[in-house]
């Protein structure tokens, strides 16, 4: 194992998959000559050439659709959205073409495509650039959605996504691009299955279900709660869809209390679905009502202290955990 950044981990995943399969290509705005808006694709043009690392005009609908068409005849496109906020311009392609093709062609055309890029609020980008899209996309049958929080997960999930025979969205976390973590050496194949959560920290008093940008918040809060003698178990979903119900249930069966901390909005958010499943299947395991920490139900304000108030954060998570623990 060695320590690399989340950005480097994604870059390695792209390079390894491009190297492995000639049908894989990377397309998006600024991915080639500019070396990636967030430098995730740095060096790939030099290594793989302009046939496979392809700059596009600002036409998300157009190039997302191009990728889907290419996937219909067996190529395996990786389509980068500069941010998933811009994927909304291509919503029709991502939601109405990619996941529907397999059903409406009677199983003749599956779409092996990866859509990737940063997702979720970053820092003071205002309402249009701060979307957390996981709950929009996870509600669409035929799509798979993963949300890596660490460099290791970023690499392993992206590589798995590229090899999947269905449309997969890899929702990266812009705020985590420079974060570091331990990852297997490059000569060791790292594939992390979709639909497998990971317990990032073991605990016995309360389960915190989190993903993407809320994972580091949860880990930080868990460390501080030790001083209050509250032992929190941190379950990182890693994939939103398929959802690892078993990992969630196993942890709650141990702790009997749960807080879900998500980066999307509360109405029809990811946590709403998880709450439903918990009460349906393991209602008797609960010793306290489930609480959710999410964004406030407002468009994102630019002002820094208001933005802080909108986002899920450590203070809100502390309060929710104390509440479910009756502490």
């Amino acid at each position, binding site marked *: 194992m060695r320590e690399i950044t989340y950005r480097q981990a994604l870059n390695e995943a792209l390079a390894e998959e491009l190297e492995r399969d000639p049908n894989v290509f990377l397309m998006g705005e600024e991915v080639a000559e500019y070396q990636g808006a967030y430098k995730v694709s740095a060096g790939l043009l030099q290594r793989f050439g302009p046939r496979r690392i392809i700059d596009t005009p600002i036409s998300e609908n157009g190039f997302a659709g191009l990728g889907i*068409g290419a996937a219909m005849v067996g190529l395996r496109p990786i389509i980068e959205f500069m941010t998933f906020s811009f994927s909304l311009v291509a919503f029709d392609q991502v939601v109405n073409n990619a996941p529907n093709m397999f059903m409406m062609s009677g199983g003749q055309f599956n779409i092996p495509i990866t859509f990737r890029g940063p997702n979720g609020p970053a820092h003071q980008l205002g309402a249009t650039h701060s979307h957390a899209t996981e709950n929009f996309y996870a509600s669409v049958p035929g799509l798979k959605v993963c949300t890596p929080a660490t460099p290791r997960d970023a690499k392993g999930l992206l590589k798995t996504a590229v090899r999947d025979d269905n449309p997969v969205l890899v929702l990266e976390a812009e705020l985590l691009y420079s974060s570091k973590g331990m990852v297997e050496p490059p000569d060791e194949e790292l594939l992390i299955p979709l639909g497998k959560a990971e317990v990032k920290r073991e605990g016995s008093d309360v389960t915190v279900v989190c993903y993407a940008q809320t994972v580091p918040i949860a880990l930080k809060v868990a460390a501080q709660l030790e001083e209050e003698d509250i032992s929190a178990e941190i379950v990182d979903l890693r994939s939103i869809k398929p959802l690892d119900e078993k990992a969630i249930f196993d942890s709650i069966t141990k702790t009997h209390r749960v807080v879900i901390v998500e980066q999307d909005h509360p109405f029809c958010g990811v946590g709403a679905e998880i709450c439903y499943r918990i009460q349906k299947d393991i209602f008797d395991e609960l010793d306290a009502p489930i609480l959710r920490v999410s964004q406030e139900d407002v468009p994102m304000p630019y002002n820094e202290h208001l933005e802080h108030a909108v986002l899920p954060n450590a203070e809100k998570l502390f309060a929710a955990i104390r509440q479910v623990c009756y502490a």
Partner: protein
Amino acid sequence: MQRVEQRDEVEMLSLMLLIRRFEERASQQYQAQKIGGFCHLYIGQEAVATGAVAAVRPDDYIITAYRDHGHALARGTTANACMAELFGKETGCSRGLGGSMHFFDKRHHMYGGHAIVGAHVPLAVGLAFAIKYRGEDRVTLCFFGDGAINQGSFHEALNLAALYRLPIIFICENNLFAMGTSVKRSTSLKQIVDRAEGYDIPGEIVDGMNFREVRDKVAEVADSIRKESHPAFLEVRTYRYRGHSMSDPASYRTKDELEKYRLDDPIIRLRAQLTREGKLTNEQFDQLDKRAKETVLAAVKFAEESPELPVEKLYDYVYFNGAKS
């Protein structure tokens, strides 16, 4: 370079007759409530799909919008598979899961059947991208109506195709109406073909009621593309005799206008050309028509007797190689 096989014109005429009779029967079955959803008929436009398909190789890629019955039949999808699809049966070309607007046939390189106006034009560019990526000499034919040319996806797709010099023919079937809105009320240009100029794509106007003209023009353009990859645009002027869909009485146009086009019928025209040249007798034509009618009647019987996909298989068509999430 693999040659395009010359298709026999009498055979092509019989294909146009098959499409005509298929659509008439579909209309009848729709009214009898054997067919659900929306149903858009191709009557009047037969020479466009038939002419274009006759000009290319079977391994070239074809993709179209929701008025797709004619394209599938022209490509070689059987009347049985098409009618069964309309009936929602498992033996349909999309197993009864797509319906009238979503005909697919992988074996015949027919990539749909797409029902969001303009949304398949980027897909078509992706098919063409794959051709160039693999260094093949195939061509993609992308059909769409005059309504699609005002969608953003259309413009993005044309720009991408021109930028990457992709092997694709954009075939605009201009039947003068986007549902009930005439081209004059929807489009700022005097003629649709000028859209292509905006993207530096060569464009031409073609008489879509003339099978030979469509075939020859598509063949010429496809030949040029195979020599050196580039996009092209054809505005094919045609007319649909029926409303936009089965539920549209088409009261936005006059009887006179319809009659004018019916006199220029693509089937009558090709028949006259062949008869004049001594290649077809009246008896032979009647035989072809009789055969088309019989094929379609047999297709209705086949569709009626075919099974539906059982509910237990519902989740088999959500993820490839996958279980439910």
